[in-house]
């Protein structure tokens, strides 16, 4: 692809790259300088020889001297000319070399930098003020063009990723809200159990979408309209990881994280918790401590897994410190820490790693004071708040307007005209609705003979149990009552000393794919 076809540029743009003027310095002054020294020496010698020579020899001496001087002058001139040419060539070579180096070391990289920073190829080329040779000009144009098109491809890919991540975030957020409603609506413990399972899965999927959004530079998907209390921050973070049941919280903190930073803090914490859970034995606990310091709040996530070696610590630190680095060289395994780095940069969090007192590794997050606030009283009751107000006088009959309840349109639609009796009222047949609903046949209907609510509706309960156990095994892939399966990855303890990142790469857990 040539520059012209790829990006039609105004011809003036090309013409504006100035050509280098040829070096045309006159050698005369140089020649004079070269001749001066031999002449200053030889002429007095020649004069002295002529003067000192006997009279008869004076003429031939003078002639000889003149000839000699002439020969000398010619020789010197020739030599000087040669030397001058040599010097001039060397000078030209030096200048060319310097120019090539400047082209390669400064001009070209600067141009590439500006293009990758988002400037158009056109703009960058026309902005070049330095004189360039034809080949340099062509080289620059070609490279700029290639970099420009690869840059726009990259930007397009990122935009696609960011857009898709945003949609996934919106979906996950919507699903989480729906699930929360259902969790309140369905009082059946078996249904609640299943809903909580789906809730947990959705929260993890949402976190993955959040990570992709962070890496592709998309806007954060969720914002909280109010400060989020520390307990909720910690639980919001742990709810997004597979091994949340292993996380133990130790916090008496009363502060809250301001709404605009809460999501980022939770996401970063979730990545650190997930990291800790994945790099400690599957049953080991991960402990989270919160400590107030003058500069803010310090949250420590400690695992009892492998102690990270110097190299691993440094690597983790640099992954987190990279902050704005690009995605190249980002192996799937270090995704989580890169996300943490981006979030830390965005919100001004400080992240560090150190060996943990528990034998594993501690990840330390410092939330600066600017992101913290004390919850308003009433936003959430503190431990000493009084929940109950003084007794009220029992209300007298409230004068509510006539039962003005509007029928549910849904019910309305299902309201089929029933069979009317002689009174003009629809006539109920006992048990009809139960059998129509398919719960219990009329045969099961023994009024007042089976008063125990607990044992009533066995058919219903059995049916329900069967239905939900199928549902459960479909979603769990295990026995009904079993909790979510633990990530099926090799115990890190089995590979002592292994680099944490590499270990994870060799034993990818199905639930920790965000790393």
């Amino acid at each position, binding site marked *: 692809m040539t520059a012209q076809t790829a990006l039609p540029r105004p011809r003036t743009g090309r013409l504006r790259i100035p050509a280098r003027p040829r070096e045309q310095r006159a050698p005369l002054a140089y020649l004079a300088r070269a001749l001066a020294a031999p002449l200053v020496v030889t002429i007095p010698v020649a004069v002295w020889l002529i003067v000192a020579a006997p009279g008869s020899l004076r003429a031939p001496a003078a002639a000889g001297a003149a000839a000699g001087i002439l020969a000398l002058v010619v020789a010197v001139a020739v030599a000087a000319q040669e030397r001058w040419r040599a010097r001039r060539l060397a000078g030209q070579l030096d200048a060319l070399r310097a120019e090539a180096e400047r082209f390669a070391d400064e001009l070209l990289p600067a141009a590439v930098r500006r293009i990758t920073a988002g400037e158009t190829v056109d703009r960058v080329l026309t902005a070049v003020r330095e004189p360039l040779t034809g080949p340099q000009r062509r080289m620059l144009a070609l490279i700029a063009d290639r970099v420009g098109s690869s840059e726009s491809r990259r930007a397009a890919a990122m935009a696609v990723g960011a857009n898709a991540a945003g949609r996934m975030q919106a979906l996950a957020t919507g699903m989480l809200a729906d699930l929360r409603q259902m969790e309140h609506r369905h*009082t*059946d413990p078996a249904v609640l159990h299943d809903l909580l399972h789906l809730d947990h899965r959705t929260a993890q999927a949402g976190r993955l979408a959040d990570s992709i959004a962070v890496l592709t530079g998309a806007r954060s998907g*969720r914002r909280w309209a109010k400060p989020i209390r520390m307990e909720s921050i910690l639980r919001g973070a742990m709810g997004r990881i597979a091994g949340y049941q292993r996380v133990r919280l130790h916090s008496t903190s009363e502060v809250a994280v301001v709404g605009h930073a809460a999501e980022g803090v939770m996401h970063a914490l979730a990545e650190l918790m997930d990291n800790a859970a994945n790099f400690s034995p599957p049953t080991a606990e991960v402990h989270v401590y919160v400590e107030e310091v003058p500069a803010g709040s310090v949250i420590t996530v400690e695992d009892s897994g492998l102690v990270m070696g110097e190299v691993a610590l440094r690597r983790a630190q640099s992954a987190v410190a990279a902050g704005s680095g690009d995605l190249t060289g980002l192996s799937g395994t270090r995704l989580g820490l890169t996300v943490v780095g981006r979030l830390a940069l965005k919100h001004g969090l400080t992240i560090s790693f150190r060996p943990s007192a528990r034998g594993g590794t501690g990840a330390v997050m410092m939330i600066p004071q600017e992101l913290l606030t004390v919850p308003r009283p009433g936003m959430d009751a503190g431990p000493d708040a009084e929940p109950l107000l003084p007794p009220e006088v029992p209300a007298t009959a409230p004068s509510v307007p006539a039962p003005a309840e509007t029928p549910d349109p849904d019910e309305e639609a299902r309201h089929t005209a029933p069979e009317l009796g002689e009174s003009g009222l629809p006539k109920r047949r006992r048990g*009809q*609705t139960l059998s129509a*609903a398919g719960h219990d046949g009329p045969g099961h209907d023994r009024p007042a003979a089976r008063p125990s609510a607990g044992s009533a509706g066995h058919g219903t309960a059995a049916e329900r149990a069967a239905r939900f156990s199928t549902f459960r095994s479909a979603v769990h892939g295990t026995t009904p009552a079993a909790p979510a399966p633990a990530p099926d990855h090799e115990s890190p303890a089995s590979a002592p000393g292994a680099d944490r990142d590499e270990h994870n790469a060799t034993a990818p857990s199905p639930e920790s794919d965000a790393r």
Partner: protein
Amino acid sequence: MDYATSDPGLVPGPPGPRAPLDASADNGLKIVITGGFGVGKTTMVRSVSEIRPLNTEETMTQAGAAVDDLAGVGTKSSTTVAFDFGRISVNARTVLYLFGAPGQERFWFLWDRLFSGTLGAVVLVDTRRLDDSWYAIDRLEHHGTPFVVARNDFGGPKHSEEQVRDALSLADGVPLVDCDARSRQSSKDVLITLVQHLQTLSAAHPRAREMTAP
């Protein structure tokens, strides 16, 4: 406190403080008020309750509103039904809880929990939509839960008690009364009818006098 009630269209009462129970309170009893949608269950709970009826579920609002609603799947605000309840302190030790439970078939999953251990039930009916109560009555008969039927006066054509009783295929012993769910006195009378009905049943079954320990 901003609790939603399951029956929309009602003017919400003032958010009042909730009185704590006597420290000696030690026995909670249940009565369920059921019936079709919009028949006045919440109204009846409200008219006799000493607390503003509470709901086990609040109106759901946006959950962490999505900044970007690219996919158009934004969370919508909606009210869903669980059950609302009120309270009557019978004396220093005994507290009666009234549960307004939707009588529709799609809420059957609530019933086991609500009806286990309940004293009895009130089925509220609206003669204009009598069949709305069928499922509730079938369910109660099936559970063997004692109940009374209360006809909430919505105006409309007046049917004789016999006509309604016949239309509902009510067993002979089941009381049918008229009421105005908005009236505290009228709602109280319905509850009194239910308790008297329970006493009658209890007297008819002398074996059932045993009190069961928890």
